[in-house]
């Protein structure tokens, strides 16, 4: 979010606490790799080893999130699929169980004093969006990811392929962007401006977070799956 003039190149010896200072969004990545706080002065390598985290995967994702410009996304295809799946599954959990309910609660709160028709239409908009995200992620959790796990065990399953996922895979951040614009530009909500600002911060963050989530699916998961499908087809 903050424009930085100096890009940080992350490697095994980077101190994790420096990394978090550099870009606080990486805190979310720690959660998704189940890395607890309180790591003192440990390096990326030390923390990853202690928590059984795939370091290449951690560095690639952290590097992409902090300085996407210096990342060669072609290298994503070499990442370990199991680690990517863990990361994506944990992200889904976070969006569905934490982020969306939290946004909804905050939205209801800032709409408390709004005109009835504003309240009804905006909440309806959010609820529909939330259902959409649930559906999108449930499909990935229940159909796409298990398919990949099967592939990893060397089993091809008929009736599904990576191409099907690619053609079904839609953006899920568009409506969050719309909601952001609606509140910033078009709906004058009465009430606590700080709460509204707070909600907007969350929306901006969620938008970015969902966008990068999809990006990782498209530029890491998809090429990895393609590679495995190819190998199995040859065998």
């Amino acid at each position, binding site marked *: 979010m903050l424009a930085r003039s100096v890009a940080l190149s992350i490697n095994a010896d980077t101190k994790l606490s420096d990394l978090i200072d550099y870009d606080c969004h990486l805190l979310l990545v720690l959660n998704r790799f189940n890395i607890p706080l309180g790591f003192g002065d440990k390096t990326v390598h030390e923390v990853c080893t202690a928590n059984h985290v795939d370091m290449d995967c951690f560095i690639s994702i952290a590097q*992409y999130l902090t300085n*996407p410009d210096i990342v*060669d*996304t072609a290298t994503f295809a070499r990442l370990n699929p199991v680690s990517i799946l863990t990361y994506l599954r944990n992200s889904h959990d976070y969006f569905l169980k934490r982020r969306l309910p939290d946004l909804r609660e905050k939205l209801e709160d800032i709409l408390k004093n709004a005109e009835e028709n504003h309240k009804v239409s*905006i909440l309806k908009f959010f609820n529909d969006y939330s259902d959409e995200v649930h559906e999108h992620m449930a499909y990935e959790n229940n159909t796409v990811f298990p398919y990949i796990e099967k592939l990893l065990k060397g089993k091809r399953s008929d009736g599904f392929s990576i191409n099907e996922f690619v053609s079904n895979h839609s953006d899920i951040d568009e*409506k969050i962007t*719309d*909601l952001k*614009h*609606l509140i910033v530009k078009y709906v004058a909500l009465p009430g606590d401006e700080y709460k509204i600002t707070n909600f907007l911060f969350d929306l901006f963050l969620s938008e970015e977070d969902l966008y990068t989530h999809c990006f990782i699916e498209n530029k890491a998961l998809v090429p990895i799956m393609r590679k495995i499908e190819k190998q199995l087809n040859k065998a």
Partner: protein
Amino acid sequence: MQTNRQRIVIAESSQMLRKGLVQSINQLPYVDKVVELDDKQPIPEQLADYRPTIVIINPLLAGTGITAGLREFLNLDNSVHLVALVYTLFDQQYLQLYDAVITINDTQADIANKLKSLSNIKKIDTTENEELSDREKEILVTLVKGLSNKEIADYHNISIHTVITHRRNITRKLNIHSPSGLTVYAIVNNLVDLNDIKL
């Protein structure tokens, strides 16, 4: 995190050239989406479906007869970067209409550098009046009531093509892209009544 995302459209009739370019561009980290256009439909019509930030186009497809008003012809506002994809000699004066020029002799790194420097410049279109016109408001109302393009065209007695142009202008001006987002806009601006639409 950074919000540098480029949506790139490539208009070039040689499929081989197009595919090659798509492949090298797709790997760039700031590229969100690359879309290929063919020459089966008029280019301006195809462009309307995407919201490109960069358009890479063979000047032959853009019409070499045009020396000015290229953006108007392609129906692109000033915020879009226009890049010429060139493999024959072109009049320098003509190429001045473009923000950058890619030639077929460019290496992958050359192309990456050119796009990188474009992607670092965010052009903001200041020429447009962002207020919806009365006509656009009327179209928006029929739109959020759930009418199809065909129905909207019949209702307002205009062509489907005009409906599509209006829709594009509405979403661009408001910066709201989902139909349900437009519905919320119409309700909070009292263009429609909550009871008139099935939410």
